[in-house]
């Protein structure tokens, strides 16, 4: 039972993470390959709160504070990284974000007070599946409503054509930075949930590999699609568990198959399962075609 509950919790965390990257990558079209870095910053920041500054209050309140700490810390990192990096485009931005997330990891690695290379232990367990799924639900609603507001439309127009968006009065830098900060912040909340669920953090859990995994979840579902992100996160979190049942040499086979799927997906359906559309609006835009 515990095993299934753990998978369920992981699914919820990855839905949150995938949606947060979808804001940056799918909505705004900015290619970030360092998302795990924000995840890690949120996790470590809220763990620091839990270990060194926890208030003697109900765990539920502490968890709420930890979530805010995770959000703010990661969002601040997003701001610091976003201001210089968002001038860059396409693969250059991707490279810069890899660079930053690796630097963050190395800084964590070299900070003894948060465990350094041994990992951060004794984090209080405040989180549970209610927190995880509550966060996932709120983030889903946020993303759906954002998409249907003028502000979401402005962000999406940047993905479609930067110059046209600017000519329509969209301040590119402001909206890119906004997506970057909020996306980073939400990833930080996911980090906070992980920290207070597993009670142990290691810098390598937030390496480049994980940035890639989150990205693949976004791409599989379809960049810009909220339902797509959810489906992508569910499939790719559960699939490895299923593969675990058939494979003997677990982790290695898993990544091999994962990687092969990634290539096949790109070759056959590069826009992902849903493209930029949602599950239930799929028919609408095709109506006029007939």
């Amino acid at each position, binding site marked *: 039972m515990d095993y299934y509950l753990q998978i369920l919790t992981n699914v919820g965390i990855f839905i949150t993470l995938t949606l947060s990257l979808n804001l940056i990558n799918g909505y705004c079209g900015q290619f970030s390959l360092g998302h795990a870095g924000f995840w890690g910053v949120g996790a470590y920041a809220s763990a620091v709160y839990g270990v060194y500054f926890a208030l003697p209050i109900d765990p539920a309140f502490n968890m709420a504070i930890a979530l805010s700490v995770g959000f703010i810390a990661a969002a601040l990192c997003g701001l610091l990284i976003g201001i210089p990096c968002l001038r860059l485009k396409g693969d250059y931005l991707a490279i810069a974000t890899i660079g930053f997330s690796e630097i963050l990891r190395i800084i964590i690695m070299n900070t003894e007070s948060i465990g350094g290379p041994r990992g951060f232990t004794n984090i209080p367990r405040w989180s549970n599946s209610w927190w995880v799924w509550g966060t996932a639900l709120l983030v889903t609603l*946020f993303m759906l*409503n*954002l998409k*249907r*507001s*003028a*502000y*979401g*439309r*402005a962000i*999406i*127009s940047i993905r*479609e*054509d930067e*110059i*046209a*968006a*600017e*000519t*329509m*009065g*969209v*301040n*590119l830098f402001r909206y890119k930075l906004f997506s970057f900060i909020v996306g980073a912040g939400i990833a930080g909340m996911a980090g906070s949930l992980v920290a207070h669920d597993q009670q142990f953090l290691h810098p390598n859990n937030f390496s480049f590999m994980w940035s890639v995994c989150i990205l693949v979840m976004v791409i599989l579902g379809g960049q*810009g699609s909220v339902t797509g992100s959810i489906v992508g996160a569910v499939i790719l979190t559960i699939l490895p568990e299923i593969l675990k049942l058939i494979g003997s040499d677990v982790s290695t086979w898993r990544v091999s198959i994962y990687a092969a799927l990634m290539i096949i997906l790109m070759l056959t359906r590069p826009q992902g399962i849903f*493209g*930029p559309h949602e599950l239930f609006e799929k028919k*609408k*835009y095709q*109506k*006029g*075609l007939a």
Partner: protein
Amino acid sequence: MTQPLLDLKNVTMRFGGLTAVKDVSFSVNKTDLVAVIGPNGAGKTTLFNMITGIYTPSEGQVLLDGLSLNDKQASDITSLGIARTFQNIRLFNNLSVIDNIKIARHTRIQYSFLDGIFKTKKYRNEEKLIEEESLKLLALFNLDSKKDLLAKNLPYGAQRKLEMARALATKPKLLLLDEPAAGMNPTETKELSELIHFIRDQFQIAVILIEHDMRLVMEIAEKIFVLDYGNLIASGNAFNVQNNPKVIEAYLGAEI
């Protein structure tokens, strides 16, 4: 004397060693319909890019209602009232026709970000209004029946029209059209010239167009500016420009 709507004062644009536009001055009044013509590479699109803030002029000033646009960002210039279309159509391809129009309303949005996230009454009322107005605008261009189509699935002519509708949705005082007739057949061009007239009269705005189709230019432009190698070599009405020896030389080459 009334203030002109758009005023270009000795505008120059250099890219490294290349001077794309050199010391150009002209002005456009409210509800003027003017054309900028000239051979390929004469600096016409560069001129548009300077007016819309995509480039900042190396020298000189662009004024809208007497206000300098030099230090303004492209997005701010849109809210001040300049809209444009592009030579190679730049629509939001993966969005529906009506969403393309709605995005253009961006600078006039009243509700706040949180209104949008929590779907407050203010949000719903304003979105309803935007929807209605967008549909009305699309109807003017006969695009209302295609409102849910993705922009990339529209036929070429309709894409050009949508781009114009989108520019108008920003509620501009000045509309810049970059080669609107490119790739159109004579019937479509005829329709286009009526449409441009109609836009000017209906919305009471000034229109500047860059165009290679001389029949269209001569038919609708009240005033024509001719650029050659970045220099403004002639200006005036269709008759004056057609008979200006410098213009003939620019287009046909010098007589030997």
